[in-house]
């Protein structure tokens, strides 16, 4: 969001409406420099280049007397262009503000003065209220136009009458009481003088006699005025239209602004790498504020993105990494060796379940512990593979032989690993579940591998989630 169109709006409005505003009080004849018209414009311009600013600082930078500045700012406050905040604060409190200023307005040099007293001082701060300025300017234009148009068309206006003798005023609602029987004029109730219709404030002239010529002249004048207004305020209206759909820069209250600014500064000091340089580079002219909300959003984004990335990565790796391993085992397996392999893969699953998931996640994580586990796992797989190859050879031998020898061989191998199997059955419920599933499902040996894979994936995902929540 850009603040520049709004600044332009403020500048245009300042030149249109506050150009001839003078701060000279009624009782200040001793000011020798004459009129200081246009000072209001200077102040507004200066405010467009700042956010919350301490009025003393502003006065110093504008080389104005602080009282003078305060008078102008009070005017703007009444005109709803500026929000002001007054608070009592110690030097410490002033420092908070100075720090906030240092965080946002990098060329604000006069920020820190020697205000090291413990005493409480009332400091005033001021800031442009862009949302309100937009509304105020629009309303002002609307009122101007309406006033002239109403007067032009004499719409819904109650004519006023004034007695030139005693100055008593009446309006058309009193007409019934004022009408006299002698002539066709209204007469004052008090002095019986002839009333005259009051002339309009905008086109002041002697309409007293109600002359048609005068009325026509007045209309011309009003029309002229309306046209002039349209022409002269055209840039302002265009700027209003341009700004209409833009998000309005909002500084919030002084406290909120300070909190944000200091938070932003901390962020800048903390991690100078990530996304803060943009804010710094934009400075005080470009983007108004390092919004805390924005940073938060960015953080959330990065978190989300990371999570998604990791997930997809792990998913893809689980797909990519696993197949070779799976295929290797699957190719090694034959029907005759089903029992052995079953047992082996069973033990494999029980001991390796956590390890498997770790293996997959090792792409994402780099815990030392996990590495160790990986190493162990690799060694374990290597051993397993070796053993399987041995078994395969044995199986080939068996196949070459008749059907009976394999059985003996199988029993041998059973004896080798059989103890383990029994222990496993006693130990884990998981194991039983796992065995049931294959029975219901596939009949070939490849199912074991598939199941292994599935379980590994599941466990891997779970661990992923936990890790990221921790992060």
């Amino acid at each position, binding site marked *: 969001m850009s603040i520049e169109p709004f600044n332009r709006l403020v500048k245009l409005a300042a030149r249109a409406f506050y150009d001839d505003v003078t701060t000279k009080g009624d009782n200040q004849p001793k000011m020798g420099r004459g009129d200081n018209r246009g000072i209001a414009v200077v102040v507004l311009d200066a405010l467009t280049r700042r956010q919350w600013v301490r009025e003393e600082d502003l006065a110093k930078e504008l080389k104005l007397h602080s009282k003078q500045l305060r008078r102008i700012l009070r005017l703007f406050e009444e005109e709803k262009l500026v929000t002001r905040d007054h608070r009592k604060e110690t030097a410490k409190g002033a420092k908070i503000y100075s720090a906030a200023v240092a965080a946002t307005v990098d060329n604000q040099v006069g920020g820190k003065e020697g205000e090291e007293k413990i005493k409480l001082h009332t400091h005033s701060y001021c800031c442009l209220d862009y949302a309100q300025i937009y509304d105020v300017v629009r309303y002002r234009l609307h009122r101007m136009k309406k006033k002239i148009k109403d007067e032009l*068309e004499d719409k*819904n*206006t*109650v004519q006023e009458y004034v007695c030139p003798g005693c100055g008593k005023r009446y309006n*058309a*609602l009193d007409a*019934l009481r004022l009408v006299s029987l002698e002539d*066709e*004029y209204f007469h004052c109730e008090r002095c019986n003088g002839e009333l005259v219709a009051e002339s309009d404030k905008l086109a002041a002239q002697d309409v007293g006699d*109600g002359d048609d010529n005068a009325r026509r002249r007045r209309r011309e004048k009003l029309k002229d005025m309306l046209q002039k207004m349209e022409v002269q305020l055209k840039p302002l209206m265009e700027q209003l239209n341009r700004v209409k759909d833009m998000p309005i820069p909002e500084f919030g209250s002084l406290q909120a602004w300070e909190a944000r600014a200091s938070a932003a500064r901390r962020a800048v000091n903390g991690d100078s790498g990530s996304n803060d340089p943009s804010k710094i580079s934009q400075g005080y002219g470009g983007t108004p504020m390092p919004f805390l909300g924005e940073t938060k959003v960015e953080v959330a984004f990065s978190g989300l993105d990371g999570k998604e990335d990791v997930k997809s990565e792990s998913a893809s790796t689980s797909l990519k990494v696993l197949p070779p391993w799976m295929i290797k085992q699957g190719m090694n397996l034959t029907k005759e060796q089903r029992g052995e392999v079953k047992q082996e893969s069973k033990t494999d699953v029980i001991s390796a379940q956590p390890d498997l998931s770790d293996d997959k996640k090792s792409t994402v994580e780099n815990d030392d512990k996990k590495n160790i586990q990986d190493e162990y796992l690799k060694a374990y797989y290597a051993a397993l593979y070796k053993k399987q190859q041995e078994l395969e050879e044995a199986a080939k031998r068996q196949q070459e032989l008749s059907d009976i020898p394999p059985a003996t061989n199988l029993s041998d191998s059973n004896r080798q690993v059989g103890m383990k199997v029994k222990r496993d059955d006693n130990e884990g419920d998981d194991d039983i579940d796992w065995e049931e599933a294959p029975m219901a499902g596939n009949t070939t040996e490849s199912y074991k591998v598939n199941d292994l894979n599935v379980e590994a994936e599941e466990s891997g995902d779970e661990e992923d989630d936990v890790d990221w929540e921790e992060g």
Partner: protein
Amino acid sequence: MFFHIVLERNMQLHPRHFGRNLRENLVSKLMKDVEGTCSGRHGFVVAITGIENVGKGLIRDGTGFVTFPVKYQCVVFRPFKGEILEAAVTMVNKMGFFAEAGPVQIFVSNHLIPDDMEFQSGDMPNYTTSDGSVKIQKDSEVRLKIIGTRVDATEIFCIGTIKDDFLGVINDPTTA
């Protein structure tokens, strides 16, 4: 705008009206008292259309008068800002003209009369267009819009305009 509403009033009846015609006397007195009056709240009471009920009378100590609380239905007329009315012109002068819509007096000041109408003084003061085709004088009928009302406790006064589309003279007595 007209409304048909129910109002209530405490009627004081003189003892001489007591008798079998008490009720008729009460009603006729009510009509005499109420019709044509104006209250700021309800407007002008145009006519009583019926009696809702008559409460129990209460004899006043000392006087012998009896007070009856009477509820009655009536038609009231109350002008509103922005309302369009048809009115008869009663008086024309340099400052504008006065018109009546029933009981309501309306003043139309000269700057709320179209600019092409000019005041002509004389025996019969009037506002006339430059080509003389339209003339507003006493007893003309005009359609006007109320742009302001002053509502007092006992009277309502309005100011109107004829400077708008479809407003102005609707029936000129001189041509009729």
